[in-house]
């Protein structure tokens, strides 16, 4: 049997470029000649129908498909087309088995296409199979083996992250070389000529290999040692915080009543992106009772276990210290997150449980395209500039 060229199957999953992909598919179908085009949007299940909790997964998938359908209708209206010019179907497929490889997905899509007379696949370039790895290329390869014509929707892809590599400068190279050499000597116990020679060789290899991923700014003779010194002052304070919260959390855990009250919170912090933000997020995680779940630019999603930890977080002592380490004493004087009103408990105890679920879902998966941004913020201050260069 030969499938009509107008039959298109589009696998969908939440992605920053899904909206654009839908627009492209509709446009293609409208432009195509021939009799009434058919488009099937399918959500490939990553669960099995008999798994516990699969109802919620199915509901999410159905919601997404409804949204896709709404977008499609909208596109048709925009194009002043007859709403019935295109047949749009949606389906959830593949919930009777676990799918592991791109080949499984391709097999399933082919079978679906054959049974519905669809011969063409359009893939969202950010489509991901399982988890968050974009695996469009292997999927395309597998589909090509199976007599389906395939096309990647030409959408503007948001750059998922800034480029990790930066150009080298002598200052960065020498700092890295010196640090590696010193580290080697410490490990070797400063034990003579042999260690010095091998150390020089090792440090050279390290410096050459890792030079363009180590520093994002030139280390300076005055500011960098000062930061390092302030960092050394920070360590005892961090240890003190860790011990205090460890004791609080230990008491809660050993308490037979297990008196916990976990909440997801959102705190907007002012420490600057890149290394300072990473330092703060890691310090928060190191302190038991608070756990950084996600960093979205200067907004940290922090899971807190007990009210004590939450209060500590909102009082912003760690944030103040990190500002002190990176920008000096002046920067440390700043209102706390609570005073600034930059704190938010995402799972409000008064709200109903469905509202909680929505809050989480909204924060987690953003269809309109900025969900990739959080990756870039961990990198460097100038990541925005570099991510523009990095766009293809």
């Amino acid at each position, binding site marked *: 049997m030969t499938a009509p060229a107008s039959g298109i199957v589009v696998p969908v999953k939440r992605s920053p470029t899904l909206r654009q992909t839908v627009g492209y598919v509709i446009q293609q179908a409208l432009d195509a000649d021939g009799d009434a085009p058919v488009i099937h949007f399918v959500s490939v299940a990553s669960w099995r129908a008999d798994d516990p909790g699969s109802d919620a997964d199915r509901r999410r998938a159905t919601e997404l498909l409804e949204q896709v359908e709404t977008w499609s209708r909208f596109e048709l209206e925009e194009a002043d087309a007859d709403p019935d010019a295109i047949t749009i179907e949606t389906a959830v497929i593949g919930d009777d088995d676990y799918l592991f490889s791109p080949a499984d997905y391709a097999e399933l899509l082919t079978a679906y296409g054959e049974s519905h007379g669809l011969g063409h696949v359009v893939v969202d370039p950010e489509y991901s199979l399982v988890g968050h790895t974009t695996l469009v290329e292997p999927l395309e390869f597998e589909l090509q083996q199976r007599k389906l014509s395939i096309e990647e929707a030409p959408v503007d892809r948001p750059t998922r992250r800034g480029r990790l590599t930066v150009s080298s400068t002598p200052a960065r190279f020498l700092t890295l070389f010196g640090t590696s050499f010193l580290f080697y000597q*410490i490990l070797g116990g400063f034990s003579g000529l042999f260690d010095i020679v091998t150390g020089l060789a090792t440090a050279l290899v390290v410096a050459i290999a890792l030079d363009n991923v180590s520093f994002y700014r030139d280390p300076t003779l005055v500011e960098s040692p000062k930061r390092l010194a302030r960092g050394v002052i920070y360590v005892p304070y961090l240890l003190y915080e860790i011990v205090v919260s460890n004791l609080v959390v*230990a008491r809660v855990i050993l308490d037979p009543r297990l008196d916990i009250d976990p909440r997801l919170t959102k705190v907007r912090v002012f420490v600057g992106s890149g290394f300072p933000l990473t330092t703060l997020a890691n310090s928060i995680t*190191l302190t*038991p009772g608070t*756990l950084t779940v996600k960093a979205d630019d200067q907004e940290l999603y922090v899971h807190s276990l007990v009210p004590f930890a939450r209060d500590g977080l909102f009082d912003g002592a760690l944030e103040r210290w990190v500002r002190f380490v990176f920008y000096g004493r002046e920067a440390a004087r700043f209102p706390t997150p609570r005073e600034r009103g930059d704190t938010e408990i995402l799972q409000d105890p008064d709200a109903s449980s469905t509202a909680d679920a929505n809050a989480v879902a909204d924060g987690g998966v953003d269809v309109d395209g900025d969900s990739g941004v959080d990756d870039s913020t961990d990198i460097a201050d100038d990541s925005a500039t570099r991510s523009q260069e990095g766009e293809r």
Partner: protein
Amino acid sequence: MITTARIGLIAVFVALGLFFTFVSATGVIRLPDVFSRAHTASQADTLGAGFALAAVALTIGWGPTAVKTVLLLFFIFVTNPTAAHAIARAAYEEGVEPWTRGDERR
């Protein structure tokens, strides 16, 4: 005298390290969901390993090896929150809803 004090201190550190590791293990078993478990799993690394390494450093005495234990602690302090964050973030992005008071245990 000094040796006795030192041995005593070593014993105290080992005991504390064991205690926090025990608390951490208890927490992993008792707490209700992946997020709260990630909290307590990192406890074993911070204070559990911290006190154990302090005991090691004391036993060895001052020297390059003691410096190495401090470096070990430093690397644990860098990698441990990164791992906890990776687990929590993976769970979050997969749409796992954090457990709140009143939910059933899962």
